[in-house]
């Protein structure tokens, strides 16, 4: 256990420093959110209609930013060899790496998402639901994104490849979360969308590490 908690500490510290860490991710997120009113005009009614949707899509894009280095750096400097040579199964090691990634970037984004949405004109009553969606969605993005990052190990311009692999897999959580938010916005039942989003996140957490470990073993061999 001390082995895995040491790994979580290392991964969180590395993700915090990686490419500027949460500040750059949050800056990117704030930047995208600021561009929206500039693109579609300042009329508050039009903005309010799309506010939650834009906050949600920007969250998915911001989660992509630091994925590239999740496995790549450990692969290049030989640390992945040592992480694989351990009594801890590589699947668990990969899961802990994704969790560290989420703590350093996904969790700060989940705090920023409701603020950005309300800033764009969404109703403040939606803030708790946006936060819940961003927590579940962020976990799904981190674990699905980890699969893409592991699959693109060793490829030149792996970051671009990661985005291309991962974006189609981001479709279901974007639909579920966006559906829940727009339903809640129009006073309809939103529970089903949030439940599906949480189910997708649970599946990504359960199955993603299997794919990540297989992809890492393949890259090392």
């Amino acid at each position, binding site marked *: 256990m001390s082995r895995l908690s040491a*790994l979580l500490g290392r991964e969180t510290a590395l993700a915090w420093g990686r490419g500027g860490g949460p500040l750059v991710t949050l800056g990117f997120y704030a930047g995208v959110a600021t561009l929206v009113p500039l693109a579609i005009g300042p009329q508050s009614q039009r903005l309010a209609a799309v506010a939650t949707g834009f906050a949600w899509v920007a969250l998915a894009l911001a989660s992509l930013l630091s994925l590239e280095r999740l496995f790549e750096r450990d692969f290049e*400097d*030989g640390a992945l*060899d040592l992480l694989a040579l*351990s009594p801890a199964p590589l699947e668990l090691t990969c899961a802990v790496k994704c969790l560290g990634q989420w703590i350093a970037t996904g969790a700060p984004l989940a705090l920023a998402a409701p603020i950005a949405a309300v800033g764009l004109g969404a109703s403040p009553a939606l803030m708790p639901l946006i936060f819940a969606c961003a927590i579940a969605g962020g976990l799904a993005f981190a674990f699905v994104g980890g699969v893409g990052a592991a699959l693109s190990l060793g490829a030149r311009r792996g970051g671009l490849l990661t985005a291309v692999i991962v974006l189609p897999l981001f479709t279901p959580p974007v639909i579920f979360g966006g559906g829940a938010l727009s339903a809640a916005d129009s006073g309809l039942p939103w529970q089903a969308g949030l439940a599906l989003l949480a189910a997708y996140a649970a599946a990504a957490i359960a199955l993603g590490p299997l794919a990540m470990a297989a992809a890492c073993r393949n890259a090392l061999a």
Partner: protein
Amino acid sequence: MINSLSLRDLSVRRGGRVLFEALSLELGAGQACALIGPNGAGKTSLLRALAGLVPVEAGEIAFGGSDPESARGGGLHLVGHQDGLKPARTAWEELRFWSLWCGGSAEAARAAAEALQLGALLGFEVRRLSAGQRRRLALARLVAAPRPLWLLDEPLAPLDAGWRTRFGEIMAGHLAGGGLILAAVHDPLPIPAKTLELA
């Protein structure tokens, strides 16, 4: 606890090319073996195959007293030329993490740092260490978390003459405790050792 290592008729193929074939070796507790051969002969691939990271084309690897899975999980150390140390983290953060990861403790990491005279360097970022200091930091893991089989890839290359002698003493101590060492080298090991040549 691994008490012997035997390779029988081992072949490894990388990228469509056979690196070596029908390689055999018997290594008992307290023995060291120097792995020699020209660049590209497959020394690193052999060490990685022993660690289970590279698939074996044919032949058998047996760890006496241990099944391959637990031998690779907690019975061997692999120190390659890529040391896995992150340039932006301090030497102490890295040594402490790898010690814990390999099943050692923070106190053992501290003691290993003393054994390799890294005490004064622990507060520095890894990027500020010289090549020899970095190698000593990587080798400190061997002392911090004792494991019977050491697979070393050019462990001496960046070390100065004094540290080659000192690391020779550390290796001799490991062998005296029943350990095994297989080291890919270009210069002779500073301890009595068998030789396995890859053509």
